[in-house]
């Protein structure tokens, strides 16, 4: 019975880790191929939420299912969940902070652009 629960936990965790690997590869290719800074913010979002948050939850489930790690596996699962929650909060906060700063300081080119609603709201001057 305990073995079956362990296998289910490990299987679900491995499915989450595989989703994370796919998001990770997609985010790295996007980070290399997208044209400018504000498009690469999307790559960072995919890489931090899909590529780090989901595999951390999956690693927590794998660690909770691994009997061979001994009783310290609960410490490992809890640490992985705490890391996931901290990462989920801090990645979005840091991304918004640096995006706002770069937009206001004009530190990155804005050129391949579709629409700039913030500049239109501020009076429509073009950069």
């Amino acid at each position, binding site marked *: 019975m305990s*073995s079956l629960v*362990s*296998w289910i936990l*490990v299987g679900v965790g*491995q499915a989450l*880790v*595989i989703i*994370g*690997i796919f998001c*990770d*590869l997609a*985010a*790295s290719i996007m*980070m*290399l191929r997208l044209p400018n*800074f504000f498009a*690469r*913010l999307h*790559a*960072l979002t995919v*890489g*931090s939420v899909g*590529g*780090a948050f989901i*595999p*951390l939850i999956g*690693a*927590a489930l*794998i*660690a909770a299912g*691994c*009997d*061979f*790690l001994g009783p*310290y*596996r609960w*410490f*490992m699962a809890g*640490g*992985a969940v*705490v*890391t996931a929650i*901290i*990462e989920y909060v*801090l*990645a979005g*906060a*840091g*991304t918004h*902070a*640096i995006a*706002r*700063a*770069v937009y*206001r*300081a*004009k*530190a*990155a*080119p804005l050129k391949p652009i579709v629409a700039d609603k913030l500049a239109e709201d501020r009076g429509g001057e073009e950069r």
Partner: protein
Amino acid sequence: MNLATWVTDFIVFSMPFYFAAFALYIARAIKGPTVPDMVLAVDALSYDLAAFLVLLGILFRAPIMIPCAIVLVLWVYALDIYMAKYFEAGEIGE
């Protein structure tokens, strides 16, 4: 099939994909045209490295090495905030 060998084989199988992603992130971090691009690349590299460190902790059967991932994630966020503060102050003051 044994659970321990299954988990070990899965983590060893997942390692080359992580290495490929790390290599592409490092390429963007080295050749990034502007400084914020490099900050983004180092950020994404560190967040994915934190997930990879947890998997390596399972692979090495060392559950005591989890706090490394927490510390890495926290301090890379601090690097992000320093850069944002530098650019904001460059806009206002000078």
